[in-house]
């Protein structure tokens, strides 16, 4: 039955992959932290007594956390569902032509509203077997290198790039280090900064850290209403900030990871509304809305830039640069020692 869903079941499915960090563990060196995260290391003022007080407090109602649960909902459409619903033809392409093929990151040539496009996205499963195959949507380095290859393919044939973001994060395993996960992500960021085709990224579920961004540097950044996008998962954030993974709902709130928050911040260009109860409750109407949004933004980019040839592409890349150039906040001290 759509509408309500079983939280326990969902957590059960994920329980074996989320990092189990004992509450009382001291996090006191950078070697222990999650990727993408910084921690206030070696700060003695946070003692464990302090934390236990917090743990015992009543957890407040968190609208952000409800969105986290929806974003991770087991019945939420996956990337291949979006491709099937939105595209008229699709040929999945495999492999990085270097080392392997990663089922956690899929991509290929597709036809969208009459255009040939390149599509890319993280792919989660819908049951344990699928999730093992898809590594819970956590790509390895070869997944990002497949993505890089397909980006280059898009550039060669001047195909707009549509990406679907839905990952807890890049896989932080031993083989990821051996095969250079950081370099793979960084090279994708670089490629996206200069890719001479329109790029539209849509966060459909979980936008988890650098593993999401690696296919998410875009001219237009869209989010489904109940998707999230965060620098670290709420559980990891709570651990890093407060050494208590159970404070994930509070972290979800504090970290401002929902689509409306991020839209307000200007990081997201548009929030795509979902049917009441979440996108999975009425997939056909969700897909109609998504199609409208993607088409509108793509058509805008084509009109504003692509129709103008080389000059237009230069302008598109300049606009993409400025878009990211201006993200960030700072203040200025008056006692400047330089300039």
């Amino acid at each position: 039955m759509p509408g309500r869903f079983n939280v326990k079941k969902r957590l059960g499915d994920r329980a074996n992959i989320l990092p189990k960090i004992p509450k009382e563990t001291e996090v006191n060196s950078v070697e222990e932290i999650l990727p993408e995260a910084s921690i206030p290391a070696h700060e003695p003022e946070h003692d464990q007594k302090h934390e236990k007080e917090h743990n015992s407090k009543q957890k407040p109602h968190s609208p952000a956390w409800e969105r986290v649960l929806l974003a991770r909902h087991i019945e939420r459409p996956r990337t291949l569902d979006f491709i099937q619903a939105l595209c008229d033809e699709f040929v999945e392409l495999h492999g990085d032509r270097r080392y392997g093929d990663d089922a956690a990151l899929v991509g290929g040539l597709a036809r969208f509203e009459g255009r040939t496009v390149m599509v890319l996205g993280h792919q989660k499963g819908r049951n344990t077997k699928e999730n093992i195959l898809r590594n819970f949507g956590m790509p390895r380095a070869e997944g990002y290198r497949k993505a890089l290859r397909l980006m280059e393919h898009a550039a060669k044939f001047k195909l707009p790039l549509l990406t679907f973001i839905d990952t807890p994060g890049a896989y932080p395993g031993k083989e990821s280090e051996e095969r250079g996960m950081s370099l793979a992500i960084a090279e994708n960021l670089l490629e996206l900064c200069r890719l001479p085709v329109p790029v539209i990224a849509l966060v459909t579920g979980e936008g988890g850290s650098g593993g999401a961004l690696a296919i998410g540097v875009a001219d237009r950044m869209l989010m489904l209403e109940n998707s999230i996008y965060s620098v670290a998962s709420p559980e990891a954030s709570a651990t890093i900030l407060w050494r208590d993974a159970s404070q994930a709902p509070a972290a979800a709130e504090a970290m401002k990871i929902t689509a409306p928050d991020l839209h307000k911040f200007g990081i997201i260009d548009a929030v795509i509304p979902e049917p009441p109860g979440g996108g999975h409750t009425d997939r056909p109407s969700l897909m109609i809305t998504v199609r409208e949004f993607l088409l509108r933004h793509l058509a805008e980019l084509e009109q504003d830039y692509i129709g103008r040839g080389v000059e237009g592409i230069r302008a598109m890349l300049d606009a993409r640069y400025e878009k990211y150039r201006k993200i960030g906040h700072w203040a200025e001290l008056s006692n400047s020692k330089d300039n």
Partner: protein
Amino acid sequence: MKELFKRTAKPGEAEANATEQAKTEHNGPLPKFTWNQGSGAADAGSPPAKVSESKKPAKLAKIPDNLWTRCPACKELIYTKELENNKKVCQKCNHHFRLKARERINLLVDEGSFEEINSNLISADPLDFVSLTEPPYPQKMAEVRQKTGLNEAVITGFGQLQGLPLGLVVCDFSFQGGSMGGVFGEKLVRLVEEAIRRRCPVLTVSASGGARMHEGLFSLMQMAKTTAAINRLGEAGLPHISLLTDPCTGGVFASYASVADIIMAEPGAFIGFAGPRIIEQITKQKLPTGFNTAEFLLEHGMVDRVIPRKELASTLEILLRLYGVASAQIANQKEASYAR
């Protein structure tokens, strides 16, 4: 199969279907990699037993000459007509028999659409090759031409696939092991240059043991020559689709056949840089069964798809349409290429 689809229903219906089918059809697993798929060879450590289908099966058992064919993989007897009606794929075990170049072309392009070019080129003898055991190279080649009814190990030309124009470069392994010498390279390059003039995508179907020894370094240089042509095809915005078939090794696999926008391979095909005996001699290790098969390459990220023969035409058709639309997009963006 979720991996590749072409919409047949109307958009509205399709979306409704998508929801209904979500639980059963979506997110299916990748094509399962079975070591023995398509080969069935039991002899671990040696390559899947491949028997040239041109050999008469008479030695295996008393069988009427052409009526029945024994499958080298599952050893079953197949009614030859039936085998040919099934594009030379064993219906029992899915073994893909090798195809000669003309068979491949006939199975693929619209009937009567194939127009061969440069069929009259034959090899010269640039080294003035002196063999210890063989007749002179020109005489040897004359014998091979006589035996195979081909002038070279590759056939090139243009055809249509569901009306979509396509340049074709198709190896024939039965002609001197599909080896690449000066004629092979020249024919490929001429085809590609003509495809650029016609603004037409190119499909290469490779089955080759590598370089033609008798032409020495001239053969090796065909790797550079053919790759250079494919580079020009790409600069013209035209796609190169490469199909690797059984067997494909050495200089062909390490040149034009691997610089493709899409690389596909036939199930069970043996594809490698070197052969397993060489690898075992060098490394003193036994190789696992299934090593250097099409499925092995897919697992190691080297090919885009392993494509059953019966799905080849429909997949190519989708790809040609997608690239055709893309090409029109580029034409609309004339001068839109951005200097990177």
